[in-house]
């Protein structure tokens, strides 16, 4: 295999900007949808994600006077959502529910099913919960939410280099888990 031919630059090409988009109000439905997607990717459960976003938006509204720099609104509210997701993730028996949620997802994506990757994707979702919390959050925010490492570091209150290390270790751990469950 030629390594250079197989190289990819995932995340950067599809990165969703962390800051508010031009013309997007902080409390707009589109901002709420982006937060919902983030919560869903962390929890893999629709009801929990909705609860997390709703509670986070309420908390953000109540504490909005504490935010001095309005430019920081988006990372600030992302941070609140992540904190809510941690609470809900601890509280709920997530594994059982995210399996059900993904079982509902798979039939809607014929392309993924025909390519044979649906099983692997379900396995990745399941194994993500086996990872340490920091590694899982970094991987989700970086690869699924499409943030840069600087943005991930700001939301998770880490140094960017620390976020990179968490991502590397998380990918390695995840790969080893996948190879154990899915030898092909």
């Amino acid at each position, binding site marked *: 295999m030629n390594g250079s031919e197989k190289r990819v630059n995932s995340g950067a090409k599809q990165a969703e900007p962390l800051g508010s988009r031009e013309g997007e109000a902080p409390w707009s439905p589109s901002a709420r949808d982006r937060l919902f997607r983030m919560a869903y990717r962390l929890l893999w459960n629709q*009801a929990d994600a909705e609860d997390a976003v709703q509670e986070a938006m309420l908390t953000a509204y109540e504490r909005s006077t504490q935010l001095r720099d309005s430019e920081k609104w988006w990372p600030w509210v992302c941070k609140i959502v992540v904190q809510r997701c941690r609470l809900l993730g601890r509280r709920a028996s997530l594994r059982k529910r995210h399996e059900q949620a993904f079982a509902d997802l798979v039939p809607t994506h014929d392309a993924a099913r025909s390519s044979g990757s649906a099983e692997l994707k379900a396995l990745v979702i399941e194994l993500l919960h086996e990872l340490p919390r920091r590694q899982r959050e970094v991987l989700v925010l970086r690869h699924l939410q499409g943030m840069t490492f600087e943005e991930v570091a700001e939301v998770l209150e880490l140094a960017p280099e620390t976020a990179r290390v968490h991502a590397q270790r998380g990918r390695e751990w995840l790969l080893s888990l996948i190879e154990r469950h899915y030898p092909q």
Partner: protein
Amino acid sequence: MKCDNARHYWHRHLDDGATDAELDGHLASCESCRKYAANMVRLVGLFDELHEDTESLTPAATPFGHGTSRRQHGWGIQTPILLRIAATILIVVGAALWFRTPKGSMVVSPTTEAAAPAPQGITLRAESRGRFIAVAAPSDEPNIQTFWLYPMVAVAESRDRS
């Protein structure tokens, strides 16, 4: 270049697209690292697919929310209509009793015509806002459950006196 370094640089390449000629040389000569790099690419590809799968989600309409929302099992959607009606009637009747009971105190006989069977000798006193208390009882422990039978009596007697 050692394998550990090569793998570290490979992750840098995955994250930032950084290139390194020494890394290319190592990958060309190391079968283990080539396999590692290929698996990492596949893993990142799976992440990309998951990203695409979930990119169009909204709270209102998700392709994978059928029957999984806790709210669909709550009061709002699947509660039987008869149960809702019964609850509404109870609330209305309760509110009517609450507001129509006379204020102040009066003594109510427990053995009026409309009353349900009551323990002999118990005297109830209707207080404001429909609360009833036992002021005399044949024993030390009056039957608390019988208190629920008396509000209608109190209302009836209240009308008679007025």
